């Protein structure tokens, strides 16, 4: 029998970016909030110590801050005819673990999806006709750009994002991203200082007629005090961002922006090392009444609450909804059901160039440091003569020059011994890369469900990912590779190579921790699991916040949009739901 605990107004599952944002807002509104977090407490002072944080072996290779498969694994397959097998280690993507979630080890690339993303089906249908989308399951998100723009703004000011506006209230700004949707004001901080390779990239792209701009970055170009009074330091360009917590208080995370304020509030409580097993519904299945979890000692506890906010990593959000029977499983054969629908990923390729006699100094890096062109992103370019929709941001980022992971050598170099060592010495300072981060559009046969065979340590079915790169996205990515081929030409490198994406998603090599969809938002309960306020259509006192709500994934990093959705949902709860609990949208 579970230990029954006193009721709270709000139970939050997971204290990463979205959980922290929701908790901050709802405690401000006077609600009593408890957050239940599976992983450990983590804080800059105690866990991201600047004196040892740059331990590449511990954090980047052995993945100290990440979810381990013995805690929760997943199974994967490329198509429905295959039998999914468990991933023995996380490779292709690396979910976070503990307070701060994946927002601890992210790079800090802080994008806004475009107005044409939120109304993607309407937009593309108007421009190209419905036939262009016939093999895709694209759908509008239910929320519009004008509704959500201020939520992006709030997040950028919380984080102190360093960047350059490209479109201020419709006025294009040279030097910024002229393809972005109109923003209400400039970024809170100026762009980071650019490294040599990114500067060179921007120069060549300008000569080619493209529109390079500094990557919007939550690595701070200068010290900053955010609207909550929390202070952040200036990025030191140490290059230990991705897979690391920031020891310098200069990468935005829940720890560096919200928690110092939140954690002291009397109406907030955090329970770490407590794993939620399921959300319990009333007998008619129409309301959530509590959450069952195992505490750090393994004692089963039941935490009742008036509202339950599912704020874990997107994939875990979807699985918890499935395990709790919140909504109906999507069936790719019939297209019916919504849970697991529109799972998307990221579609990337890259180019590498090697020179002689350069001093690129790649150890001067950051998580989100570089120049980007969006001339081929989203629908910034005409697709009418192309056999795909979607696009990619093409960027020259300098994110790390770390000694274990960054050992580029010329093809044909010895693979070991003194010859290899010399080749890595020659390669280190002479190599630069550019990459295309492409959109991922939903198709009927990519989806999530519960695995029929494999279970976790508590006997619950694992999440099963059925995914391969759709033909549309492969065509898109190969088009980007063609563009990159043209882009590298004027560099006159001694050696250059451009990769081309092929079908057959492989879960082993790292690609991207941008897993989206599965509990998507929308205006139609037949095709979306949550409404435009991220409220479950089926159980209205449950809100599901995260990239799980993305109806598709764009050619941009998701965190900015994830956080904007959290602010948007928090606002709906405090201004609408608290006054009148119940469904905020009637289908």
């Amino acid at each position, binding site marked *: 029998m579970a230990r029954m605990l006193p009721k709270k107004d709000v139970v939050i599952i997971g204290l990463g970016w979205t959980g922290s944002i929701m908790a901050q807002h709802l405690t401000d509104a006077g609600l009593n909030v408890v957050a239940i977090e599976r992983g450990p407490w983590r804080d800059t*002072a105690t866990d991201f110590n600047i*004196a040892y944080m740059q331990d590449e072996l511990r954090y980047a290779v052995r993945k100290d801050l990440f979810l381990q498969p013995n805690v929760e694994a997943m199974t994967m397959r490329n198509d429905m005819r295959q039998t999914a097998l468990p991933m023995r280690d996380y490779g292709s993507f690396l979910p976070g673990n503990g307070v701060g979630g994946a927002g601890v080890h992210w790079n800090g690339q802080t994008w806004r999806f475009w107005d044409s993303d939120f109304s993607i089906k309407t937009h593309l249908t108007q421009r190209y006709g419905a036939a262009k989308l016939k093999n895709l399951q694209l759908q509008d998100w239910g929320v519009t750009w004008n509704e959500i723009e201020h939520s992006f703004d709030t997040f950028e000011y919380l984080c102190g994002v360093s960047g350059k506006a490209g479109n201020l209230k419709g006025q294009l700004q040279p030097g910024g991203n002229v393809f972005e949707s109109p923003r209400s004001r400039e970024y809170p901080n100026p762009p980071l200082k650019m490294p040599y390779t990114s500067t060179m990239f921007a120069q060549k792209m300008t000569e080619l007629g493209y529109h390079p701009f500094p990557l919007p970055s939550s690595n701070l170009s200068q010290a900053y005090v955010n609207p909550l*009074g929390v202070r*952040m*330091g200036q990025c030191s360009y140490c290059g230990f961002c991705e897979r690391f917590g920031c020891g310098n208080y200069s990468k935005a995370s829940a720890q560096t922006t919200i928690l*110092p304020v939140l954690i002291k509030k009397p109406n907030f409580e955090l329970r770490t090392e407590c794993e939620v097993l399921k959300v319990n519904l009333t007998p008619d299945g129409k309301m959530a009444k509590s959450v069952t979890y195992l505490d750090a000692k393994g004692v089963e506890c039941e935490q009742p609450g008036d509202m339950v906010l599912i704020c874990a990593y997107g994939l875990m959000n979807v699985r918890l909804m499935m395990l709790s029977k919140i909504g109906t499983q999507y069936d790719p054969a019939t297209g019916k059901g919504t849970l697991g629908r529109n799972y998307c990923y990221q579609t990337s390729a890259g180019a590498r160039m090697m020179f002689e006699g350069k001093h690129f100094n790649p150890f001067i890096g950051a998580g989100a440091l570089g120049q980007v062109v969006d001339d081929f992103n989203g629908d910034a370019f005409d697709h009418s003569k192309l056999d795909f929709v979607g696009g990619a941001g093409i960027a020259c980022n300098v994110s790390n020059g770390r000694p274990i992971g960054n050992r580029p050598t010329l093809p044909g170099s010895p693979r070991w011994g003194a010859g290899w060592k010399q080749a890595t010495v020659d390669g280190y300072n002479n190599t630069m890369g550019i990459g295309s981060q492409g959109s991922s559009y939903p198709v009927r046969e990519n989806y999530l469900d519960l695995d029929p065979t494999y279970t976790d340590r508590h006997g619950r079915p694992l999440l099963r990912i059925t995914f391969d790169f759709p033909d549309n996205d492969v065509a898109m990515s190969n088009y980007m590779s063609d563009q990159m081929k043209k882009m590298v030409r004027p560099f006159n490198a001694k050696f250059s190579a451009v990769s081309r994406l092929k079908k057959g998603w492989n879960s082993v090599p790292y690609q991207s921790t941008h897993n989206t969809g599965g509990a998507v938002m929308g205006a139609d309960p037949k095709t979306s699991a949550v409404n435009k306020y991220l409220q479950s259509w089926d159980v209205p006192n449950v809100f599901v916040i995260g990239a799980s709500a993305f109806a598709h994934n764009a050619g941009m990093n998701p965190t900015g949009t994830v956080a904007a959705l959290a602010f948007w949902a928090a606002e709906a709860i405090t201004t609408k739901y608290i006054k009148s609990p119940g469904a905020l949208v009637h289908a």
Partner: protein
Amino acid sequence: MSRFFLSAIFVALSTSAFAADAGKYQAVLGDCAGCHGKDLSGGVTLMTPFGKLVAPNITPDKDTGIGNYTADDFRAAMKTGVAPGGKRLYPAMPYPYYANMSDGDVAVLWSYLKTVKPVKNSVDINQLHFPFNLRIVMAGWNALFFDAKPQALEPGKSAAWNRGAYLVNGAAHCGACHSPKNMFGADKGPLTGAVLAGWYAPDLTSDKNAGLGRWSTADIAEYLQTGRNAHSIASGPMAEAVENSTSQMSDTDLNAVAVYLKDLPASRGNGGAATGVETQMKAGKDGYDINCAACHGRDGKGNALFPALAGNPNVLQVRDDTIARVVLAGTRAVSTAKAPTAPAMPSLGWKLSNQQAADILTYVRNTWGNAAPAVSAETVERVRGELHGGS
């Protein structure tokens, strides 16, 4: 009409609710919670050079607290260090400071303490070494070092100065940590800095190097209220004082404290710049650039988050206990409502040798306009030993 009005106000002010609120503020000024614990039930251990003292329970519990005290008992304990039954308190209870409090302020404090929730908690207070464990010894101490006469007003000074003097030398008992002690633990030399439980409570006089000479009154008030300002950031024992006490003081009182401190005559300073330490300075610069500059800046100016080292009094004290300790063991700043971040200084003791730490500290103490004596490897070794030994 005015007579009626005033007497009505007097009645209103005399109600116990008002007195208890005013008394609560006195408890903030006096930082009672700092030693007696958040619920005032005692139990916080004070390490003194004479042995261990554990702060007693001062909740109104009749068996283990001070529930049987009368108002007069309480006033006597606060202002003369003598508890009921003639029991002599140790001056770790800062009655030599509280003797300066007005009877009115002590009375409202008593009103407040009577409203605190009684907690049953029996405390073994006296764990001092012989002969200090004999309370009668304190009679002699008082005869030598204790002047029960309250501090007189200085008519030539402003009201703010006088209020500041009343607070600093009374309820706030700043000198308990910041004034050097003689061999009997009594104050000598006001607020010129003192060693305290492995830290060095800095010089608060107007000396430009070791003291607060470079701070404005606004800087001092900001520091006390938020725990940070452009020059420094509070950690260690001062973090507790800021959290429990100064961050909750009124703006008027903070300004008064600042006005008074700014007017303290300069101490004899820290002894001036290090000389003949070129080797240490060169090695220290390299060590600083590698280990420290990312946060504190190569110009030593810090930023909105991390404290400056240029002109930071903690860096420039005559004794280097605090900075050696902070480099070896790290520390964490206080979190206040107005400055919630509480950044941390990491421990570098595991990666720096005593000589390396001494070189860096010598460099920091003698760069960007700083001037202070060199730090020796022996000093760092001693502090390291104290940290490991826990004494």
